[in-house]
């Protein structure tokens, strides 16, 4: 028994890799369509806030992520924009991450097309600017001075959407979709802390546990954590998309890891028991 346990403990890691690959591919090719997922309070916080806004209110979204976080934050961006456009909110979008510009632009224009929104009137894309925290302070002090032109080269003071928007003080709600730093904490510390706008967040699962202290104090009013959070938001919108599809994969891979950990501990106990006897 000990011998078998030893062999299994020293299993070639490529066998584990194959197991993981199978755990991802099987539900992708044959979805299980597991029953609906429960909605957590942090996700509902963001949803309820957007739901409470009136048509014409301004939602500011900063998509601070790059392609590495696409499966988690891209569906979040899609869902939030769908929610905002369905409620006829005006949306201003930007990013603090240079490699994220292409994706932020893609999300914005894709959902705007879906809802037949007009650029410059219903939504605008500011693009990217280097400087991280200084960009946030700049937006809080004077938005049009910080971004004299939008991503497409239009002067911001000539776009209708910016008519009464001079700084972050004038927006009704902000959601930061973040994959790290600069992200939600940066927006809080250098933005909300001084300019007083309501802030919500969406983030990768890696950084989500570190943001709970801000959630409890109300420094952020809601948090959409990882692909699971994105799936919850899709459920709230009643519009299931890629994040919900991914829940089957998360189920199988998580169960596999749990199984591997439990098995390895059993094998470990068997080998240790043998040693103690000896």
């Amino acid at each position, binding site marked *: 028994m000990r011998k078998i346990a030893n062999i299994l403990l020293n299993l070639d890691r*490529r066998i584990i*890799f194959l197991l*993981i*690959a199978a755990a*991802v*591919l099987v539900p*992708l*090719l044959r979805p299980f369509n597991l029953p609906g997922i429960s909605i957590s309070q942090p996700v509902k916080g963001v949803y309820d806030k957007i739901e409470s806004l009136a048509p014409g209110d301004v939602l500011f979204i900063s998509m601070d992520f790059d392609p*590495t*976080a*696409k*499966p*988690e934050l891209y569906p979040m961006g899609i869902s939030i924009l769908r929610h905002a456009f369905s409620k006829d909110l005006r949306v201003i979008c930007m990013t603090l991450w*240079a*490699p994220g*510009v292409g994706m932020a632009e893609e999300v914005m224009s894709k959902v705007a097309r879906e809802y037949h929104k007009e650029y410059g009137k219903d939504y605008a894309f500011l*693009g*990217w*600017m*280097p400087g991280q*925290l200084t960009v946030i*302070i700049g937006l809080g002090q004077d938005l049009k001075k910080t971004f*004299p*032109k939008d*991503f497409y*080269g239009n002067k911001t003071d000539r776009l209708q959407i910016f008519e009464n928007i001079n700084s972050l003080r004038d927006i009704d709600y902000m959601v930061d979709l973040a994959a790290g730093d600069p992200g939600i904490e940066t927006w*809080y*510390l*250098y933005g909300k*802390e*001084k300019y007083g706008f309501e802030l919500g967040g969406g983030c*990768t*699962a*890696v950084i*989500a*546990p*570190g943001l709970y*202290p801000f959630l*409890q*104090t109300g*420094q952020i009013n809601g948090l959409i*954590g*990882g*692909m*699971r959070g994105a799936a919850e938001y899709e459920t709230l919108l009643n519009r299931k998309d*890629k994040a919900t*599809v*991914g829940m089957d*994969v*998360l189920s199988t*891979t*998580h169960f596999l*890891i749990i199984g591997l950990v439990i098995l390895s501990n059993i094998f470990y106990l068997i080998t240790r028991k043998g040693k103690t006897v000896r």
Partner: protein
Amino acid sequence: MDLSILLGAWVAAGLTLFIFSFLYKDNFFFKLGEHLYIGVSVGYSITLLIFKFMRPKWFTPLFGEHQWILLIPTLLGILILTRFIPRLSWPSRLTFAFIFGFGAGLTIPRSISGYILQQIQGTVIPMITKEGTQISYTFRDFSNLLVFIGVLTVLIYFFFSVEHKGAINILSRIGILFLMISFGASFGYTAMARMSLLFGRCYDLTLFSSKRYYYATPILLCLIILCFLIHHVLSKKHSV
């Protein structure tokens, strides 16, 4: 289908498989993909820097609108670049001093009010429920008590100016238990994040496996495996 979309699918599938080939072993395809990644991302950043920052934010205001005051930050910016010449690098210190002074000045008041005061306020919260003259003890109160104990003991654990003996040692041990639970939760979330990323790539790979994309993924996968086999046979022959 548009040729550029088809070609894009083949390139995306190929590059994804190049990187995944590292799971078998470190190899030429992975290195190629890795270095292409660095090159393309740097090239992308340079282009953005030129067209989305330098042109609208610096070149046009300075040379088009003659905002000569921008010469000062320009000079400070250029001074940074003296770091490349070790003998003449000292002027870069002036700019760095400006950046760090500005950053430090911004950080102190914001950290005090945004982090320390708010976080302490969130820790010292009611641990019993009082409605009128009635006092009760709910699960929420118990959770609030746990938050207080957790924050305090974790801070004690990180307080190294006092030797961890006696009561301090017991408290710091409790702090470690809180930290372990937090690290465990973080591991769970990290696993979730990584699996999500893997799902994203596999989703695209299965998409590119379809007839619509002329079976890009399986064909490229077979080609890569074939290359590995040929390499394996040749190297075996060489060693013989």
